[in-house]
Each structure stands twice: as structure tokens, then as C-alpha cells.
């Protein structure tokens, strides 16, 4: 189970990266990166998961005394939240860039942005 989640995560990362590295259209690249980010997030939560345990919220189902024995690792969940938010931030920023680039050049082809080189 954990392996499947992990493997899916990795696969998403690879797919995302493949897309980001081969697609020339900036918007597509952004989408590809989002996919890769999703993969990363999946990997993050998968690592925290412990089979057969419940969410780390203490309530009637999970009394504080049993928490240690019955809940999954809460930390990766906290991390993934941060990672998601940061991912969103960067995606938004890339979109803004894409917009500006389009306004400036009328094209979204990454391979045409080459004035700076060597």
C-alpha cells in the first residue's frame, strides 16, 4: 500500500518532469510542474502513513491516551501543507511570468526566450 502510493508519487514526478522538460509551451510546462509537485506531495504523505491507523486528531474515536498507538505520523501532513502552499505560490508566480512574457512577445514558446546566453 505504502509502496504503491510512493511509486505513484514518483511516477507523477517523472511524468511531470518529462512534460516540463519536453513541452515548449510555457503553460504546459507550468501544468507539468504542477503534476510533479503533486507527485512530491503524494510522496510526502505516503511516508507518514502507517497502515491501519487513523488521522491525528484527538476526539472521541481517538482518545489522547491511545494516540501513540493508533494515529499516523502527523508531521508529514504538516509538511505537505506547507509544500502545497509553496507550490501554489510558485505556480501563481510562474503564471504571472507567463502572462508578462506573452504580453511582451506574443508567444509562449520557451525556446524563443534566448537573448541571454553564453
Amino acid at each position, binding site marked *: 500500500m505504502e509502496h504503491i502510493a510512493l511509486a505513484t508519487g514518483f511516477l507523477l514526478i517523472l511524468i511531470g518532469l518529462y512534460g516540463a522538460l519536453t513541452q515548449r509551451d510555457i503553460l504546459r510546462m507550468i501544468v507539468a510542474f504542477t503534476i510533479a509537485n503533486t507527485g512530491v506531495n503524494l*510522496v510526502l504523505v505516503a511516508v507518514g502513513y502507517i497502515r491501519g491507523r487513523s488521522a491525528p486528531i484527538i476526539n472521541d474515536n481517538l482518545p489522547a491516551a491511545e494516540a501513540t498507538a493508533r494515529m499516523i505520523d502527523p508531521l508529514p501532513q504538516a509538511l505537505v501543507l506547507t509544500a502545497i502552499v509553496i507550490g501554489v505560490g510558485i505556480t501563481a508566480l510562474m503564471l504571472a511570468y507567463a502572462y508578462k*512574457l506573452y504580453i511582451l512577445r506574443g508567444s509562449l514558446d520557451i525556446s524563443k526566450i534566448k537573448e541571454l546566453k553564453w
Partner: protein
Amino acid sequence: MVDALAIIYLTLGTAFLLGLLRDEWRILAYGITLLSLAMVSGIASTWVWHLADNPAESVEIMTAGASPPFAINLRMGLAEAAALMLATLTGLASTIFLKDTLLRLGRRAMAVLLVFIMAICGIILTRDIFNLFVFFELVVIATAGLVLLSHNERSLGAGFKYLMASQVVSILLLVGIIFNYHVSGSLNIDDMAGMSDMLIQTTPLAFFLLFIALIVELKPFPANGWALDIYESAHPAFSAILSAAAGTASLFAVDKVLAIGGDSWLPVATGIGVLSFIGANLFALAQTSDRRLLGYSSVAQIGLILAIIGQRDILGDSYWLIAGGVLLAHAVGKAGLFWLSGLIAERELTAWTALRDRPLLLFAFISFIALLIGLPPFPGFYAKWELIHLLAGADRIALIVLILFGALLETAYLFRWFGLILKHDEVAEKAPCPIQKVVVIYSAVVAAWSLAYLWGELSVFGNLMHAIPLLFALLFLPLEGLPARIKNVLAIGGLVTWFILQYPLYDPLQLIFGAIILPGGALILLASFHNQGRRIGFYPAALWMFAGLSMLIVAEDSFTFFAAWESLTIGSYFLILRGKHSQPHAQSYILFSLGGAFLMLLGFALASAGNPLFPLESLTTVAEDVAPWVFILLALGMMTKTAAIGVHIWLPGAHAEAETDVSPLLSGILLKAGLFGLFILLIYMGRQQLYGIDLTHVLLWVGAISALLGNLMAIYQEDAKRLLAYSSIAQMGYALFGLALMNHLGWLMALMFVVNHYIYKSMLFLSVGGVAKRTGTKEMYRMGGLITLMPLSFIAVLIGIIAVSGVPPLSGFGGRWIFYNAIMSAEYRLPMVIIFLAGPIAFLYLFRLIHTIFLGQLKDEHRKLKEAPFWIILPQMIYVACLMVFALAPGLALRHVDAYIDNFFPRNGLNWEGLTITSTYGYWSPVSIMIVVGVIFATLFAWLVFVNRRAQKVKQFNIVFAAERPYRPETTHFAWNFFAPYRKALGFMTQPLVTRFWATVAESLHTSAELFRRLYTGDGQTYAIQLLGFVVAVYLLSSGVFYGV
């Protein structure tokens, strides 16, 4: 103490606060921004102050009331505090610099800038690995935002490429973090470092991902195309922060994370670092855009520091001093240069010529590049010294060689840049310099020099900034506004006073060199009275050189020796660069000299087996297996200064193109530094054998060949000063030869050459310089017949050439006589053959010198010339007098030296009793010779004058030959290609093979830089691919680390 976290929450709070302001209140917003940055810089500074006094009181900062690893914690130690201070001050300075831009863009931009600086501080402080990631992402986003500050539309593309790369990095980083967490159950760096072995053994890959992601944040070569684009297109004030502060922070991150990886990952860091250092420096060679060049340089410097981090297992206590020295030097220097670039309108390197007439900014530029290269007295110098020694102590020679090679490349393009500024043909228009920008730049200069002082204080070698000669040279900086003549009086006074003060402390050898350097230098400086105006830049440079020289001769340990050596090199570089067309020559001078210096550095490091405090005497006790190598390295280093054949190509141009009073300084005095070094080397190390070859024997050959080829090349020169310059190569060859004979008289002869060469070469350069000043050319065939117009110059040259050629009765003969006596007892005979061949050849060029300038036909355009200026003639006449005295009584100086040499070679000294000097083989009576020759000569001359007392001077136009009057007699001056037959016979020996060799080296470096930098195609996707490719390559190459442990 103020809570260290205040640095974070103050900046962040201010950033949030700015949102409350109306968009129109920009000045208020700007004021608040400045205020908060000033406050945090103040906090950081007080921390530095506090922790410097109480290093033990570094503070762990807990958050959330829980202890690590369960809550995030931060640490404030001295290193952190220093880095924070650097980051906040850079941020503050850049904010001041960015005033106009920020006011235009409004509070949002200021908020972004604040967050950027806050995030950098966060990276430095945090001890939590995920927190590190968060701050990194903040830096990334802020960077992407701040790139937009630039007017440059291309920056948009750069920002996007940067974001792409960052996405890839953050993917790797997150995966790395989570797997590390999985294994260790902790996110705290110290906690994980405690489990280092377990971590590395169970999942080395997890650490690898973490590590490589942080490494890529350092923008290592070659996975750094995106970063270079940022540097090139972003606003320079932002690039300053990015390079100085963000670079520092990333290095901190790597340093922390390496604590987890343990020692087995250090070599990987070193490898990547060194690759970056060399690769980026190489590519920078081919750059013409200033900011991109600075970008390459940043990458290189950070690579170097990474390499140092990778060596921390052997650096011990010095780790922080070394890494910190290089890092701070890089940060201040690079930030300063980026800020400077903000004053330049165009992006070509040549546009920097706008600085030419701004001495203060130029000084700033020099200080910055000196910081970057690590020249004395800047921190990089101490750091380099210590680093190389410790590496040598651990036998990591290959690494030393690589580092020094990279440093040389860096020197090449930075100094070329400086040369361009001063000497490029077209001067760019000055751009306006708003006061706030200039203030920022000057504060960086102040920081640079303060760091120099601080590192001097911290080092165990003694503070170079306490050396009186260096301080004296620096004194001339504030005096630059005075007229040159006043400064000249001061300079001469300083040299003479120092000599008088030091005189009692010198031993005879030091005395000989000291006399040449100090009073001798003062004598040459008499000629400088000729210069009008303020002559900005001359005196600090000249006195810096003199300071180096005077420190060199009294140096007792290798550090002082090396520091003096580099000082004199730099001072003389600036002197050489002053000539009109001297840029390429100054460039090759500095490259050869620093290259040589690096060899010496390696030599000293090997000799001392890594002990940075190494008295020169201990060269006698160097371990046997390294001794010959030490000898070779040191000798090579010193021979670059004496311009032995093979490394001589800098000399002719450098000496020839220099100013009139600079050429004698260079030739008469500077070359002697190399000889002094060789003396010291041979005194302490004596003969060394390598694979059965006696190395002094090799020196013998080198000296002989230098003498021959120097002379041969001199005879083909059309340029009078070049001719003299080649002659210097030959003369130094003789001196080297004498030294390498390793017997009493050989050394005496070398010393005699030291004195003689100083006198006659200074004199000749002055007279030729004076003539060139009057005629406006240095080409000898354009002169002719000047004897009647410039009789005093002629006399100087005449006496000079008699002395050089060694014809009795002048002092040159003494040198030859000692030389023959010396070789009588030498063991090797074949090199003598070459020396013999070299001897008479000197006549050829000497005759040509005097003939084509002073004799023959006067040119039309020279008919109204006057004698050279008084101040140029005066020292020449003094030299003539000196030569006469020295010819009559060589014993005045030499007998003491002779007695001194007895310490090393007790046998075969000379007998100085009476008027005749006797050796084992022969005898020589200078006074008798002078009298005999004088009487014969005077008698004949008097008679001839008497009988021809009524003779009339033939006018130039009365000349008749073959019964024809030439239509234009001045065209019959036989001067061009004077020794054509000789060239036909022996021209093959002067093929410029060496020049060609070095040209090929330079060319191939440039070509490869030009070729390989096309790697950076400009395509963001390609960059991302390269980045991943780099990761994979490191993975494959370091697989030994994975599976070896």
C-alpha cells in the same frame, strides 16, 4: 542582547506593515524599510561584537516553547552572526542603492526586498531542515520578484528560467527531506548529524538528494545557466545581494547539511566546488558583458568556498578563518563590483572606461578585484596562504594545483578588465553617479579595508596593515590631490629615511639589495620631478612596490616573504600599466608574476609540510623527498621575476612601454627581487638532486640560454627600450648563471651584476627615455645624429654601453673578470660555451643603440630638439659618477660582500689587499687599468685635438660619398634592420617559440571558453535538463561514496 529572532520578525513585520501604508506614501515606506534594515544590521553587528568577545556564548533559539527536534530551533553563533551582518548590511546598502527604483515601484517592491533579506537570514539561522526548505523557497520567490526590478526586459525570461530550475530543485529537496525524516525520525540538523552513520548507511540516496539540491542552489558549474542569466539581467543592486548574501546563506546551508553527510561526502563537495571554480573562471575569460562576467565570477568564488567546505576535515581550527576570509572577501568584492556596475551605462566591459577619470571609483574597483583575487593585505590572501598550507600538509597537492590554476584564470580576466578600463582606446561617456550609490560603493571599500585589517589581526602571521612601508604607501592615497613634485619629495624622503633607519639591521647581502632598492629607488625618483600635474596613481603604486621590496629583503619567514612578493608584484603591475600601450604587457606581467607566486606558494607549503608559520632558515631542513620539488617550485617562481627564458615574454613589452621613470624602476630594481629570492633559496637549500640531476646545473643552463637568447633578441629590436629590455633578460641570465655556479666567485659576480645592472640599466633607460620623450618615438631608425643636440644623454649612453659590454676600464669589466675566475672552478663546462657566445653579441646591440640614436644622420624633424629635461639628466650624471667610482674602487662594496659569502663558500675568495685584487687564478688592478688607459687615451686625444685645432665641423649637407651628394642625407641613416646578415645567419635561434607557446596556451583557453560556453544555450528547458543531468552525473560519479562506506 537583542533576541536574534528579531532579525526575522522585525523585517517580516515591516514587510507586512508596509501593506498598511497608502501606495502614495512611498518615501515613508522607503524610510521604514531603511530603518528596519538598519535596525537588523545593528542587531547583527552587536551580536558579532558580543560573540567575538565571548565565542562560547552562542545561543540556541527555541521556538514554540518546545525543544528540538520537535519544534524548529535556530542557532546564533559567531559565524552565523557574521553572515547575518553581511546579509543585512548588504541588504541595507542595496536598498540605499535602489532608492530610485524602489520609490518608483512602491511599497510592494520594498516588502519583497525585506522578505528576501529575511529569508536569507532565516537560511543562515535555522537548524531545521524543512524550515531551511521554506526559507529557500522564499528566497526563490523573492528572487523571481526582484529580478523584475530591472529595466531590462530580458530579465523576464531569466526569471522564468530561474523558476523552472527552482522547481526541479525543490522537488529533489523535498524528496530528500522526507526520506531523511523517514529514516531518522527527525528534521533537526544536529539531531540527524548525530545519526549520521546510520543515515548514510541505510539510505545514502536520501542524503544525496538533499545534498545535491542544496548544492544546486549554489549554482554550480555547469548546471547554472539560469543563474547566470539572472546575474546578467537583474538589477545590479539585487545581484549584489544575490551573490553576496544569498550565496553566503546557501553555503551555510551546505555546511550544515554536510554535518549530516559526514566526511565521506566532503570529497564530492570539493570536486563540485573545484569544477565550478575552474569552469566558471574559464568561461569568464570569454565574457564581454560585465554583469555576466561577474556572474561567472560569483559562481567560481562560491565554488571555491564549497571546495574549502569540502576540505574542512583537515582545516581544523582554521576552517572558519579560511572559509570566512574567502567568503567575506568574495561578498564584499562582488557586491561592490555589482554596485559599481550600476553606475555604468552600457553592459560591455569597455563601457567601464567611464571610470577612468574618477580616481576614487577606480580605487574602489581595484580594492574589489584585489579582494576577489586575494591579494595582500586582503583576507583572501591570509586565507589562501593558510588553505594551501593545510592542504599541502594533508598531501592534497592536486587540489592545490587546481585551485591555484583557477585563481590564475580569475586573475586573468579581472586584471584584463582593469587594464581595459585604464587603457581602452575609446572612453565611454560618464554616467551620472547619484550620491546614494556612490556612498554605498565607498562603504564597501571601507568594509574591504576593514576586513583587511581584521584578518590581519586574526591571523597568526602578523598584520600586514601594521607594516610601516605598506602604510607609507597607503598614506599617498589621501595625498593624491597634491602636486606630483611634493609627493615626489615625500617619497624620496621616505625611501631614504627608511634606509637610514634600517641600515644598522641589514647584513651585507641585505645591504646590497637594500641600497639598490631604497636610495637607488630615490635616485631614480629624482627623474620623476620632471612630471607636472598630480600624476594620480603613480605614487601609491610605486611605494607599494617599494614597500614590498623593502619587506622582501628583511623577511624572515615564508609568509612575510610571500606577502612582500605579492605586494611588490601588484605595485609594479600598476606602474607598468601606466604606460600608453602597456595594457597587454601589464596583463602578461601580472599573469606570469602571480603564476610564479603561486608556484612559490606551493613550494613553501610543501617545504613546511603544511605549517603556515615557516621560518626561511628551515628551508635547510626540508624533508629529502620533497626538497628538490620545493627547490624547483621556488626557483621557477623567482625566475618569473628575473624573466629567465621561457617565462620572459612579459618583460620586453612591460619595460619598453612603461613611462620614462618607470622603466628604470622596473629594470634596475624590480628584477632584483627575483635575484634576491634566488640568493635566499640557494643559501638555504643549496644543491638539490632530482633523479640524479643537479638542479643548480639546470639553473646554469637556464641562465646561459637566457643570456644568449636575450642578447640575440636584443640585437634585432628596432625599439630602443625593447632592446634594453631584452638586454635585461640577458643580464639577469648572467646573474642567474653566476648564482648557479655555486661557488664563491659566482655569487660575487651575481652580486656585482646586481649593482652594475642597477646602475647602467637605470641610466640607459633614463637616457633613452629622455630621448624618446624629445623625439616622440622609441624606434631607433627614426632617430639619428642626436649627439650634438643631446650630448649629456649621449655621454650617459656611451658610459653605459662601455660598462654593459664589460670593456675595461669601467666596472662592467670587473663583472667579467670575476665571472672568468668563477667558471675556472666550476664543475660544468658546456653551459659556458653558450655564455661565451652571448658575451660578444652584447656589443652588437649596444653599438646599435648608440649608433642609431646619436650618430649618423640627423632627421629633419629633430633639428630643433633640446637636451632631455634636467630632472631626467640629473640622475644619469649621478650614475656616471657612480660607475666611475665603482670602476675605480669596486672593493668599497664588494669586499664586504666577499667576506659575507665566506659564510657559505669559505674557499676561493678574493684577496683585496692593496690596489690589486687577486684570485686563485689571476689578478686585476682596477686603478692601474684606469690610469694606463686614461694616460694613453688622454695623450692621443690631446695630440689629435691639438693638431686639428682649426678643423671645422662638417655640416650635414656637405657629406659626399662616391662623389655624389645625397639629395636627402637623413635618408641615408643606416639603421633599420641593422644586423641583417646576422639575422640571416642566426635568425633561427630567435624564432619566437616561447611567445608562440604561451600564445597558444592563452588561445586554447580562450577558444575552449568560447566553444564550451555555448553550453549555455539560453533555453530554460535546456538549463533544467542540464541541471538534472548534473545531478545524475554527480550521482553516478559519487557512487563510490554510496557503496564504498
